[in-house]
């Protein structure tokens, strides 16, 4: 077996399930579908007075990559506003090889996805959804 996409760290991130579920009283919510594969991400956020994320929860109906990405994102999202999330997205884009440069943790785990162009959307879908929720 070669060409291992699901390396331990990605599987671990998915299994960690950071932030899975719903919020009781979200400030904002968003849902995104990837019509190509049917992956669906729903994200709830509670914002503080400055528009920063105070609490986040996600429901992913999708593959391991999408689950792992949502989990990784939830683990570092609290305290950030839209600009802060956009900055994180660059790490994910770097990890999957869409931008130049080193990816910071936790998104560096997604480096194997750079060889799988068509799966990169799976990693980015939670970012798209959170961006919708924050705008």
């Amino acid at each position, binding site marked *: 077996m*070669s*060409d*291992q996409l*699901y390396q331990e760290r990605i*599987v671990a991130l998915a299994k960690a399930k950071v932030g899975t579920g719903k919020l009781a009283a979200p400030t904002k919510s968003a849902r995104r579908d990837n019509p190509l*594969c049917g992956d669906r991400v729903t994200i709830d956020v509670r914002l503080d007075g400055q528009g920063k994320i105070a609490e986040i929860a996600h429901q992913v109906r*999708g*593959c*391991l990559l999408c689950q792992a990405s949502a989990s990784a994102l939830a683990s570092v999202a609290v305290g950030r506003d839209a600009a802060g999330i956009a900055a994180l997205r660059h790490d994910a884009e770097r990890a999957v090889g869409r931008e130049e440069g080193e990816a910071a943790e936790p998104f560096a785990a997604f480096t194997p996805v750079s060889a799988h162009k068509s799966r990169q959307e799976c990693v980015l879908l939670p970012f798209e959804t959170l961006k919708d929720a924050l705008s």
Partner: protein
Amino acid sequence: MSFSVAAVRGQFPILSQIIDGRPVHYLDNGASSQTPDTVLNAVRAYETTGRANVLRGVRHLVLADREASEERADVAKFLGVPPMEIVFTGGCTAAINLVAYSYGSLLQPGDRVLLSELEHHSNIVPWQLLRARAGIEIDMIPVTADGRIDLALLPRLLTPKTKLVSLAHVSNVTGAMVDVGAVVAAAKSVGAKVMLDGAQRAPHGPLDLPALGIDFYVFAGHKAYGPNGVGVLWAKAALLDAMPPFMGGGSMIGRVTFAETTWAPAPRRFEAGTPPIGPAIGLGAACKWMQALDWTGAHAHEMAMVQHLMDGLQKIDGARIFGPAGLQNRYPVVSFTLDGVHPHDVAQTLDSFGVAVRAGHHCAQPLMDRFDLDGTTRVSMAPYNDGSDIDAFLSGVRYAAKTLR
């Protein structure tokens, strides 16, 4: 003539290749089959020599030759029908759209078309577009828990307003074959026509369409060992003759003036413009190839693989087959889910084992919705597959079950 997997495999150049250091375990035939040498050579011969011969000389040479072409005859023989009832289209989807536009234009607002819940989008969306254009209604036959069209409900769903029943001959998700006799008897009792979408049936051997009593049949070249870019519509000559053209262009006309244009007889009326000659020649060769195969042997082989695969899956904790449990009235398409692992992740893992399968909604979202599935992983076999393909597949699923949940 007797069936030998090894002999069949030897005719498919792709199967002897080593890709990324591994043999190819190609179990995604429902999406697109592979092509044998004889098809590749027929297309290449056309491209390198025939392209001048066919086109040489005077204009009507081309048209006359095309109507009476060998490939039309070979496809017709495969379906058990006269050559002039074969219409070449751009694909199976194009063939269904042809019927929805042309036959569909003869329907009245309030007329009904009956589909099933397991149809491929290609046999749903054209009718939704027709509904939007022409005010027809769409009814839908539910599916049983084991993935078959539930014909028990047919009598209640057929009405005198039902003009067409259009169903998958074999489901591209569950592998179930519909009971054509029952459908035809019920449809005829209200005067409805019957169309079968044969995309998943045609790759498994010759047909006798007149014996089925149906009105329309469609299938795709690239799933039946032929090239991409060609499909087939069959209908009885009298029915084709009653249908107006779909697309307009060269060679589907009698005479063109700006005031008025007259139509050529079928099949030309439905073959506007330069047809996909190369792909059609390839499909003719593919039909001839299928015709020459021992299908009693091939079908037994296919069903043995299905049994092997189902036995193996049953031993994997949380693997659930979505489709008929037995081998009766089914073809070698098997869908399953693995508890706690997303179908795409199963497919991705199999990919890293050199096993090509398909995961997702299989262009059957209504079916997925009905059973509340994220999708399934689908294995679809052809006569050139063998036990080693199934074993590689089962190893991959076991690995996914162990590592991904």
